[in-house]
């Protein structure tokens, strides 16, 4: 079963991490690197990406002629997707355990951030033949 683990950050403005002391930033990045390595070593990683900050995000929709109309992201958005992992695991509980581990990423004082991680199952092919 594949799950997407989505890491959210407060919206409206650049990433909070930009205001942290350099050592805290390094520790946070190192944590994320190690976490990704561990997922690969476990044979569980499908994909992982970190996304550029909210200040660079654009909301795009098609105009009448189909051409893109771009806009800044609505500032009232409280939560913002900062990055995600897709993992391939045997159970949902395993995906939750991995999410909890990611949630413990260190913050400015080195203490765990307890980040909220949204866990969603990735749609797949049917497990068995559909009858009827």
């Amino acid at each position, binding site marked *: 079963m594949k799950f997407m683990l989505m890491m959210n950050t407060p919206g409206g403005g650049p990433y909070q991490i930009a205001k942290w002391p350099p050592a805290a930033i390094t520790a946070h990045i190192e944590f994320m690197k190690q976490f990704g390595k561990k997922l690969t070593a476990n044979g569980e990683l499908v994909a992982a990406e970190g996304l550029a900050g909210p200040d660079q995000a654009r909301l795009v929709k098609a105009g009448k002629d189909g051409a893109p109309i771009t806009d800044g992201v609505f500032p009232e958005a409280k939560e913002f997707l900062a990055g995600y992992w897709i993992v391939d695991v045997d159970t949902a509980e395993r995906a939750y355990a991995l999410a909890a581990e990611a949630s413990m990423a260190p913050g400015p004082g080195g203490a765990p951030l307890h980040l909220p991680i949204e866990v969603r199952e990735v749609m797949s*092919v049917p497990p068995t033949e559909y009858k009827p």
Partner: protein
Amino acid sequence: MNTPLLRELAPQVLGIVLRRFRDFAACEDAVQEALLAAAQQWPSTGVPDHPRAWLINVATRRMIDHVRADVARKRREELIEPEPVEERDDTMELLFTCCHPALSASSQIALTLRAVGGLTTLEIAKAFLVPEATMAQRISRAKATIKDSGIPFAPPTAADVIARLGAVKHVLYLIFNEGYTASEGAELVRTDLAFEAIRLARSLVRLVPDEPELEGLLALMLLSDARRTARTGPAGELIPLDEQDRTRWDRAQIAEGTQLVTRAFARGGVGPYQLQAAIAACHDEAASTDATDWAEIAALYAALYAYDHNPMVALNHAIAIAMVEGPAAGLALISALEPRLAGHYRLDAVRGHLLERSGDQAGALVHYQRAAARTTSIAERDFLLARASRLKGFS
């Protein structure tokens, strides 16, 4: 490239190399390297006169290099002391090793496909839609677990065969299902898994003759696979059994599967795979849904339920009963399942189907929509939404 030949030879070569060097993890790597070398070289050099001996030589050279590099830890002469290589098939021992109970299902599957199926790591990774590095790690961790478990690669005792054949059958069935449920087009690489599972089950039936449940498993695969091309439409959408074009079913495969399951039943010792194969045979032999022997199918599901009281089996039993006695009888059976299947989309999907047949369109719509919201399968969700949209206007 001569893939079928390489896949056929893979377990034979691994068995022989293993009997000489014993180290399962290293031997399996060496054979994989030999297979990759063959895939690279044979297209230009041509297939050697003795392809198996060629692969054994390459794998053996790799192992000798490996042992030399490892000489500080182990006494080399002890490891490479040549043993007379007797002619026998090691596929069964390999399957027992790969389906070791200490491994998770996903590891058992990956290792079986590589060590016994002769697939490359990249092929397995593509089939399961994960990166090659991830699949490589899954396989090497599985091998480390086998090593830690301390169970040697050895011919199994008669008691072992009985105890561990169950795990092997389960893994082959999982591999089959991965391939069988894949739709055409982009997922074509996955349908290869159904073919591989059938091939491995065939070789196991040859090695362990007179095992009715093994024949039942092979029959179940053949009888299900016979319908594979008819079960999805051009856009990959699911086509339910009652709407499938039965002229597209593979008659030769149906005949083979039916013959196998009939023979297995005659041996006695009926089990879940034979029962499922018999159900598949009932569908395959019928000219239409109406002409299907639903009473027989209901009886087979009842017998299957006696094995492990699986609520999904009970659900299928209810569908069969509904076909014999009418939707009300099926709905009554389903209500009794509610506590055990509460919130499961299949319960809603079947209830929707039976309500639609009983004429309660509004009720059917609610359950189709609820099922569509809960399934994690895109094809199934689309199917359920299409069913629901046909009923709109009744709500």
